């Protein structure tokens, strides 16, 4: 129930921000009776209607809160901290992706993730991360997909 309340409030905030951002679109309505703002306004209105429907669902289920909590029960968020860590680590990987190059950045990125999620198997982790980074680079370059070379000469 609490999750649904948060979704309801977030939906209203998104609708308000979207409506405000729509007013900032420069208007040029030559040959187009509606202009670039009309469809977004319609969507903003629809989002408000959807929020209203969610409110109705919450009202209907108010006596049965267990049904509406979904996966977001108290225990479900406990391990989400790991995902925050993985997201930050992935963000850092993307930050150095161009500078270090695909092979080096990917090998380090993969090795760290495997060290956490596949603990203690150092040989397998090092081999997989280095071989995957090298082989996938070679394969995608062969397929005309340009991946950054970075600090490596090839």
């Amino acid at each position, binding site marked *: 129930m609490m999750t649904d309340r948060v979704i309801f409030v977030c939906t209203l905030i*998104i609708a308000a921000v979207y409506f405000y951002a729509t007013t900032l679109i*420069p208007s040029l309505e030559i040959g187009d009776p509606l202009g670039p703002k009309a469809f977004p306004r319609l969507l903003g209105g629809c989002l408000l209607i959807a929020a209203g429907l969610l409110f109705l*669902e919450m009202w209907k289920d108010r006596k049965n809160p267990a049904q509406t909590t979904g*996966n977001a029960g108290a225990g479900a968020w406990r391990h989400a901290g790991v995902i925050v860590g993985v997201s930050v680590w992935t963000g850092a990987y*993307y930050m150095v*992706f161009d500078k270090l190059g695909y092979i080096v950045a990917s090998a380090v990125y993969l090795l760290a*993730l495997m060290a956490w*999620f596949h603990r203690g198997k150092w040989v397998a982790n090092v081999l997989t991360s280095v071989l995957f980074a090298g082989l996938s680079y070679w394969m995608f370059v062969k397929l005309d997909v340009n991946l950054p070379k970075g600090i490596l000469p090839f």
Partner: protein
Amino acid sequence: METLTHIMNGFAVCLQPINLWYTFLGCFLGTIIGVLPGIGPSAGIALLIPVTYGMNPTSALIMMSGIFYGARYGGSTTAILINTPGEASSVMTTIDGYQMALKGRAGAALAISALASFIAGTLGVVGLTLFAIPLASMALKFGPAEYFTLMFFAMTAVSSLAGKSPAKAMISTILGLMIATIGIDLQSGQPRYTMGVPELQDGVGFIIAVVGLFAIAEVFTTMEDMTRGVRTEIIRLKGRLWLTRDEWNRSLMPMFRGGIIGFVIGVLPGAGGTIASIMSYVWEKRMSKHPEEFGKGAIEGVAGPEAANNADTAGAMVPLLTLGIPGGGATAVMLGAFIMYGIQPGPLLFQNRPDLVWGLIDSMYIGNIMLLILNLPLIGIFVRLLYIPGGILMPLILAISTIGIYAINGNPVELYFGLVFGVIGYVFRKIDIPLAPMVLSLVLGGIMEQSFRQAMTISGANPKIFVGSPICITLVALSVLSILLPFLLPRLKAWRDGSRDTA
């Protein structure tokens, strides 16, 4: 007669060695994607699009559709051996398939699942062959208003059927449409919601969104499960990979019934393979002389749902190819792929590119035969994939997703967009907001707005155009029904139960 000529020409296209190779590759990759957790057909197809830029569109689309239906074959393997559906549509197979495996009949469960997939998959393609031309001819009468109402219906149907809460599905749909409005407006040339970020001027790439929402988010969810210590035990495959005569006799009719249910459900937008397999399971249980065996390893409970979820893929291709309207996540990604190759699916496709459309349809006959071979004698090889530790597989999927996003434009900023979508997808899963409606509206959003504005320009800004023809009226009525049905059905049921109690 004309259809027969097209079918023959289609076979001439799909039997070319290069297309046979791509059919095989698509089926092979699809089976792997189906078996592996952490990546589904939507993300699999999206990841392949950048790699296929230089390819002939026919070959590329043949390969992508191979992934789409191949994943359904592979999805049953995990359902039977580890009680976890590899694909959402295999969820019903876990019930009796896993029970059969526990009783030492894993080989028979895998065999019937492959046979049911083959028979129903082929039945579905026959249906697609028969219905494609009549529907495409009807769609030629569609103008912008009809297209807008059709897309509106597709979205409302998906919203009403996806997830547990129709309101949350509707929020997902509208958020997708809102994201689709980001970028330069095609008619006025004005930038919208770009926040000064140059990378947003062309809008948010749907491949980035799909890879983030489906692949990265799925990896995050699996990683969280691994941290929680959720472990799956794989049942060893032993014994003969074949059926007894009694098992075959009991499976035959469920396969045909499942095939018909799956095809019909597949044609309808929104319903998809999961609903098709649930309906088939319920139907088989009701028809069975031994309903008490269901849930304890009844082979009909594997044959019917597996047939249904495979026939559904051919059914889903009907609206995609004839109307240009996808009915779910994977077909939405395929529509995006068509558009990227400069091809607009729809009725004109049958006139302008019969080689492509019939080559694609006929490749599905060949692909189903290939999948039967891959999933019967070679199933043992695919089962080995289940032994790859999640701690190795999940990081590799993240790296592949990174390549998939980077390969589009070679722009590192887009990697961050992918990550943002991954986080959104992960959060949405946790709070039960379905993702398929968002992807559908992301792909259709631009076309939908153009149809809306074209219709309004034709009518001089009079919205009556959207109820100005019988097709529009029917589609609007169906849309309203789709929105109201999830709210009305429980009330109707409560009222019926109440009146039964008082009687």
